[in-house]
């Protein structure tokens, strides 16, 4: 960066307590946790210090950073009074410490940064009074979509510095409202329509590279599955889905296959289509007048969980990816087990989220695969169709708790819930992979 820097501080500092990574209880396969650790039951507090200059763009950068760190649910975001955060000055470590602040995020902007210049984002350890990490961020001109995306990526990096795993701000959620497809950022901003074939278009799913989506299109002569390139909008129909009802697509973790359910006069069954070779549809279940649907892949691609009505009401099952070894997965509840639907395998492979009816009302559950125990997550209103964030601790879902069907996000670690799409009628959310926007970064 050149001279003439104006100091703003985005400070994140280590906490006074003995810290241990929250992720250490559930390490990702092969993952190595670095950075600050903290004890269960505590989390680091962070202050995002104001930019040196009060410009609209820099103010919005600060606001976006604050909100992203807040919505990561890994920090307590503190808002120090302006006397403590003199714009342009070095962080007042003593004053921040007295406010219980562990970390501070500061940003240093060159003059004219809002016209497409660079800012430096610094993570300060307030306790030791030092800068732990820094990154340069080139701001796109203006205050629109591109700026928000750039800042989301930076805040995901700040989360990675502290916890060892990146945040989820630079992701997106596809959903259905009014029969159409929409995309929204997890902070509730940037909602935009995705032109789709058919209406309604249902059950959108992301490819692992975030470039392709699959969904069910209601067109006059059928219910085909459509593969759609997000950038170009070009579409193709999955072979064999010209007939019958074709629903609940999900890409395999390597993106080479698509599992889905095809229903016709003989019932509904799970199939696999070889997307990579654009050929070869394989039938994985053989029902007879009953339904098998909603396949969801384990992260290693070796197994599929799915819903089957083979024993009466829809319940959760699992099989190998070739269709062998089919068995019931969830234990039955005491009394009668409600209809179970909408399963999605967690990114860490250890659990499956789904909804199950309790007294006729769907509620979210998470099944722990090691113990096969289920844990009820919600209990207020109808709660349906959970989808995992790439961090494996947040779920987006549909809830009627406020009166109409809206999209909500729950953090499974803290239990915190917040609405993200408050327009009524939102449903069938699908959370994007992390890689979605990496291609846009350049």
């Amino acid at each position: 960066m050149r001279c003439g820097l104006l100091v703003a501080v985005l400070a994140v500092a280590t906490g006074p307590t003995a810290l241990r990574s929250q992720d250490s209880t559930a390490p990702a396969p092969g993952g190595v946790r670095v950075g600050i650790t903290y004890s269960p039951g505590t989390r680091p507090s962070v202050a995002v210090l104001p930019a040196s200059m009060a410009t609209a763009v820099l103010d919005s950068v600060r606001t976006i950073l604050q909100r992203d760190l807040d919505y990561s649910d890994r920090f307590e975001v503190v808002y120090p009074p302006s006397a403590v955060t003199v714009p342009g000055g070095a962080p007042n470590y003593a004053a921040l410490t007295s406010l219980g602040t562990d970390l501070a995020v500061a940003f240093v902007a060159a003059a004219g940064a809002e016209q497409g210049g660079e800012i430096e984002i610094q993570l300060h350890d307030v306790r030791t009074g030092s800068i732990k990490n820094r990154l340069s961020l080139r701001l796109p001109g203006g205050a629109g979509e591109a700026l928000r995306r750039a800042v989301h990526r930076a805040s995901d990096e700040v989360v990675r510095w502290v916890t060892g795993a990146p945040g989820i701000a630079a992701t997106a959620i596809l959903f259905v409202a009014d029969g159409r497809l929409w995309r929204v950022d997890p902070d509730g901003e940037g909602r935009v329509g995705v032109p789709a074939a058919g209406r309604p278009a249902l059950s959108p799913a992301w490819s692992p590279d975030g470039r392709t989506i699959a969904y069910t299109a209601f067109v006059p002569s059928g219910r085909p599955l459509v593969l759609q390139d997000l950038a170009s909008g070009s579409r193709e129909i999955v072979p064999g889905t010209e007939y019958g009802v074709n629903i609940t697509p999900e890409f395999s973790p390597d993106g080479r296959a698509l599992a889905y359910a095809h229903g016709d006069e003989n019932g509904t069954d799970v199939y696999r289509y070889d997307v990579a070779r654009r050929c070869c549809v394989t039938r994985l279940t053989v029902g007879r007048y009953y339904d098998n649907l909603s396949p969801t892949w384990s992260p290693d691609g070796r197994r599929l969980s799915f819903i089957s009505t083979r024993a009466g009401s829809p319940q959760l099952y699992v099989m190998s990816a070739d269709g062998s070894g089919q068995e019931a997965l969830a234990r039955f509840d005491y009394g009668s087990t409600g209809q179970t639907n909408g399963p999605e395998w967690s990114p860490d492979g250890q659990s499956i989220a789904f909804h199950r009816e309790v007294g006729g009302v769907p509620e979210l559950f998470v099944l722990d695969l090691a113990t096969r125990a289920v844990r009820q997550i919600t209990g207020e209103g109808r709660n349906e169709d959970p989808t995992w964030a790439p961090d494996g601790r947040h779920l987006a879902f549909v809830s009627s708790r406020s009166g109409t069907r809206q999209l909500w996000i729950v953090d499974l670690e803290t239990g915190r819930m917040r609405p993200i799409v408050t327009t009524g009628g939102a449903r069938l959310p699908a959370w994007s992979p992390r890689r979605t926007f990496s291609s846009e970064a350049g």
Partner: protein
Amino acid sequence: MMANLWRTAGPAMVLLAAACGKPAAPAPTTPAPTPAQSQAARATADSAAAAHAAAARRDSLAAQVRADSLVRADSLARADRERTRADSVRLQVQRQSADTAPPAIAGGLALADSTALADPIHFDYDKSEVGAADQPRLDRKLAILGAHPRLEIRIAGNCDERGSDEYNLALGERRAAAAKRYLVAHGIAAGRIDIVSYGKEHPLDAGHSEDAWSRNRRDDFVVTRGAN
């Protein structure tokens, strides 16, 4: 209804209609083929046409899928309102046509036949079996389809608002398939009946009562070809 059918159907219909009361028994002049016979006949007759139809269907689908369903960010709330109104209007129109529509001829079909063909059948919650009370409704459709061999129909399975969006699409398909199976088992060529599922996307009654739910758990029957 039955009287209407008899008046308008003519002598040929009488025989078929008489068979309606005992759907499993073959009519005297046109014995229903055994399942094996009808399957073989269908296979031969359908194979050439099926290949052609499949190609046409793929082309048509490809065109439908190319067309955008464009969205604008500000259109959501308005669309919500419009849909609510449209649902309410549709419900009114359907009630009116069922209760007070004047006699008329739809295509080449007598009104009574059109009405009987369109008469929906209903299902228990989360079930897809055709109930005993609805078998006479299907038997009347059998008679009409038998008397009008060029008629082709589409059966659309529908569900109430309970249960998941996706599961209800499978359930709706099963409901449509159940009615088709009944008609085909009683001699109607499978190629004349198309099935489709609407899941819970097309409720007839927008209410949230047991009454509304039972009205919405239904198969609709629509003539797609050969009405005139």
